[in-house]
């Protein structure tokens, strides 16, 4: 395959060379190809910057959402009664989830992220159970199979990274391919109603002040779609559910500052790189009026879609054939 560069530098205006992944927009930033919603190059820069701002301190203080979700994910991982040789953490960031994995779950953790600075933000000492071996791979999450061999992984986990993936169906297929038969995938991604307060406030403010709207909050995957996508990718024994994290902020400005420090700034293809001060002030007022809490703070909702899927294997439990039941339910009920 095309392994010249694992992460192509998608400089704007550069002509696309033909022996390359066709994922990048063909021309200007406003041209949208199939499955091109997010500007992955901008996202990587945002993440790199978030990890280096004030020596990583800002990034560490805004870990609260990811840490909360990582803790919930560990519970799900512990439900799998199996000791792994190696777990792949896709889109690991500095290791919110990996840091919680202990040696009774796995012998080794492989962290993979497209932001090198974020990947190396924290040293191993003091952050990590050192009896677990750790490897870091700097690679694009969207091109997993370039760095991971098919049928090689016992378990793949992904904690709050899939919401920046352009081709979600394709990445789920790659995850399935990378897993060994009977391997498990456990994922958590932002979706559904995530940040709907910010979305609606900015839309109303922009509409009332400027007379139109532009994308500020990413389009979100719906819960319904996720189960379809998982089964389309070929996973079996699916579990999909939804969970929410609510955070209260003093005002919209603190929320936006924290989002930036989380590396979660807007990275939609064709976004405006500019927001008028009037609109910003208006949005803050609307946010408070429409969604504000009684104590004067404003809430932000993070909705998390959980997904668990297994790669099919002959020795897996399967539903019995239709009509093979011997007990009449009439007798039981």
């Amino acid at each position: 395959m095309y392994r010249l560069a694992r992460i192509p530098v998608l400089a704007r205006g550069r002509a696309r060379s033909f022996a390359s992944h066709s994922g990048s927009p063909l021309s200007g930033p406003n041209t949208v190809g199939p499955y091109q919603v997010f500007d992955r190059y901008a996202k990587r820069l945002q993440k790199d910057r978030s990890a280096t701002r004030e020596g990583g301190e800002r990034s560490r203080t805004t870990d609260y959402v990811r840490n909360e979700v990582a803790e919930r994910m560990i519970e799900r991982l512990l439900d799998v009664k199996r000791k792994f040789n190696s777990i792949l953490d896709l889109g690991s960031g500095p290791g919110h989830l990996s840091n919680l994995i202990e040696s009774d779950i796995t012998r080794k953790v492989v962290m993979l992220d497209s932001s090198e600075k974020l990947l190396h933000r924290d040293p191993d000492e003091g952050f990590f159970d050192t009896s677990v071996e750790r490897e870091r791979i700097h690679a694009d999450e969207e091109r997993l199979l370039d760095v991971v061999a098919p049928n090689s992984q016992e378990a793949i986990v992904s904690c709050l990274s899939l919401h920046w993936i352009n081709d979600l169906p394709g990445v789920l297929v790659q995850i399935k391919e990378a897993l060994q038969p009977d391997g498990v995938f456990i994922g958590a991604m932002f979706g559904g109603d995530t940040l709907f307060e910010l979305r609606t406030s900015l839309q109303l403010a922009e509409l009332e002040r400027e007379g139109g709207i532009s994308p500020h909050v990413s389009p979100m995957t719906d819960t319904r779609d996720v189960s379809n996508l998982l089964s389309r990718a070929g996973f079996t024994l699916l579990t999909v559910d939804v969970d929410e994290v609510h955070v209260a902020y003093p005002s919209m400005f603190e929320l936006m500052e924290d989002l930036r420090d989380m590396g979660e700034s807007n990275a939609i293809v064709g976004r405006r790189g500019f927001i008028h001060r009037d609109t910003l002030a208006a949005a803050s007022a609307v946010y408070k009026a429409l969604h504000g809490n009684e104590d004067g703070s404003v809430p932000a909702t993070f909705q998390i879609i959980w997904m668990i899927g297994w790669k099919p294997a002959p020795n897996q439990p399967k539903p019995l054939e239709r009509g093979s039941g011997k007990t009449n339910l009439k007798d039981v009920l």
Partner: protein
Amino acid sequence: MNSATTNSTKPLRRFAVSATTTCAAQAEVYGKCILATYTDVKKDACKEEFAKFGACLRETLKKKW
């Protein structure tokens, strides 16, 4: 990098304080106006309310607006 960050953060910080604290009363009036019309909001639906809010912001931020 660091100096650029502080330079870009401070004016925004000042702006945030003006928008949420100093001009909180005008912001509330504007917010209530949107709240009353948000099912059918048009451009300049709350123009007068925003004019007062904006005037307060301009007054507090002076040249830094």
